[in-house]
C-alpha cells in the first residue's frame, strides 16, 4: 500500500432512525481497483452511494486530497427510451460538449464496448448484457477519474458478465480508479487489487486481494468466505 490515497473516509456514519447503516467507518482508499465485499445488508451499496454523493452522511466526512470526476454504473442498467447512442450522448450533453463532439465521443465509447453496430437501436429493446454495456459506455465516455460500480453483473448471464469484466479492465487500464461491489467472489479475485470487507455497517478488514482470499485476518471475513464459497 503506497502512501498516497485518493480518498480518506473519517468516522463516516449514516443513521436512519435507530439503525446505523454505516457505523463510524474510517479508512483510506489507495488502490487502483478496490472491491467492497460483505454479506447482504452489510452496507456495501450504501457506502458506494455515500462516496458518490447520492446519499449524505449523518456523521463524519469524506476527504478528497484531489477532487475526482466520478461516474457510476448500477446493478440494473437505467436506459432512457431512446437509442443506445442517445443514451450515451445524454451524459456528454450534460457536461456541455458540442453536438458534434458528443456524437463523436459517444460512438467511440460504444465501439470500445463492442456495440457500435447497435448504436441506433432503441436501448430498452437490447438484452440485459447489452444494456449494461451501454451503461458502461455512457460512464466511460465521460472519462471519469473514478468509476463506481454497484454489483454490475448481478443481473447478467455468465457470458455477458465476462464481457462486462473485460470492459471494466479496459477502463482501469485507461487510467481510471475502480471502486465496486460484487457478490461474485471469483470476480472479486479476478478484478480486484484490494478488498474492503464490511459487516453490519462497520469496516472490518482492508487487505490486498490474494491475502484476503488465502489468509483473511478477521473471524468475520473467514466466516463470510466459508459461507459464500460453493
Amino acid at each position, binding site marked *: 500500500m503506497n502512501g498516497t490515497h485518493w480518498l480518506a473516509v473519517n468516522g463516516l456514519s449514516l443513521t436512519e432512525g435507530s439503525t446505523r447503516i454505516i457505523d463510524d467507518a474510517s479508512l483510506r482508499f489507495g488502490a487502483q481497483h478496490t472491491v467492497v465485499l460483505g454479506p447482504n445488508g452489510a452496507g456495501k451499496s450504501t457506502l458506494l*452511494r455515500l462516496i*458518490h454523493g447520492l446519499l449524505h452522511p449523518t456523521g463524519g466526512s469524506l476527504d478528497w486530497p484531489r477532487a475526482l470526476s466520478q461516474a*457510476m454504473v448500477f446493478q440494473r442498467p*437505467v*436506459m*432512457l*427510451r431512446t437509442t443506445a447512442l442517445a443514451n450515451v450522448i445524454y451524459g456528454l450533453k*450534460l*457536461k456541455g460538449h458540442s453536438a458534434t463532439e458528443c456524437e463523436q465521443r459517444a460512438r467511440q465509447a460504444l465501439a470500445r464496448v463492442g456495440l457500435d453496430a447497435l448504436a441506433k437501436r432503441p436501448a*430498452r429493446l437490447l438484452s440485459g448484457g447489452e444494456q449494461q454495456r451501454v451503461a458502461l459506455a455512457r460512464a466511460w465516455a465521460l472519462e471519469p477519474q473514478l468509476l463506481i460500480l454497484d454489483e454490475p453483473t448481478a443481473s447478467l448471464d455468465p457470458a455477458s458478465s465476462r464481457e462486462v469484466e473485460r470492459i471494466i479492465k479496459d477502463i482501469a487500464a485507461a487510467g481510471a480508479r475502480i471502486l465496486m461491489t460484487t457478490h461474485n467472489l471469483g470476480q472479486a479475485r479476478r478484478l480486484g487489487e484490494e478488498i474492503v470487507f464490511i459487516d453490519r455497517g462497520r469496516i472490518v478488514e482492508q487487505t490486498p486481494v490474494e491475502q484476503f482470499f488465502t489468509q483473511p485476518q478477521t473471524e468475520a471475513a473467514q466466516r463470510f468466505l466459508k459461507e459464500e464459497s460453493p
Partner: protein
Amino acid sequence: MHEFNEPFVTAWQLVAGADARLAGIVLLSLSVSLTATLIACVAGMPVGALLAVGRFPGRRVLIVLFNGLMGLPPVVVGLLIYLLLSRAGPLGQFGLLFSPAAMVIAQAVLVTPIVAALTRQVIADEWSEYREQLRSLGASRSRAAATLLWDGRFSLSTAALAGFGRAIAEVGAVMIVGGNIDGVTRVMTTTIALETSKGDLPLALALGFILIAVVLAINAVAYAMRGWAERHWG
C-alpha cells in the same frame, strides 16, 4: 327499449347525410377541446414534472391542491371565466366573451389541473426509477424534469387524453362563456342540452351517440399509436 332504436337510426342518418351543420358543430367541439388540451399540456406538464422531482417548501400543499382541482365543477369554472371576460370584468376590453376563444380559455383552466396532477404521478414513478442515474450523471432537478417529460411521453399521452375527455364532454363551462350561439359557439354538448330542453330527445340522444363515437375513435387511435410506440421504443 325501442326508445333507443330511433336515436341510433337518426344518428346514422345524420352522419351518412353529411349534414353540414352537424359537421360544423363536431369540428368546433374538436378544435375547442383539442386546443384547450394543448394549452393545458404546455402549462400543466412542466408544473406536474417539477412537482414530482422538485423539493421546495409548499410542495405537498401544491400536490394536494392540484389533485383537488381535478374535480373543479365545469359550471363554476364557466362562471369565473365569464366574470373575468365580461365587459364589466377585468379582461372585458378584449371582447372575448361568447367566442370560441372564451371556450378554449375556460376548458384550458378546467383541464390544466388534471394534466398537471396526472403528469406528476407519471413523472414521480419515472423519477423513482431514474433518480439515482440522472443525479449520478449530474442532471439538475429542472433538467431531470425535462428529460423525464420526454422519456415518459407515452404514459403522458394518457394524461393528455384524460384531459381531452374531460374537455369535450363538459357543457357547464362552454355554455356560460360561449352562450351557445348558433353557428358561432354551439358545440356538441351544448347542442345536446338545447335539443333536450326543446324536448327533441331522439335528436339529442343521436348527437350523444355521435359524441361518444368521436371520443371512442380518438381513444382507439391513441391506444394504437401508443402500442406501436412502446413496441418500438421499449
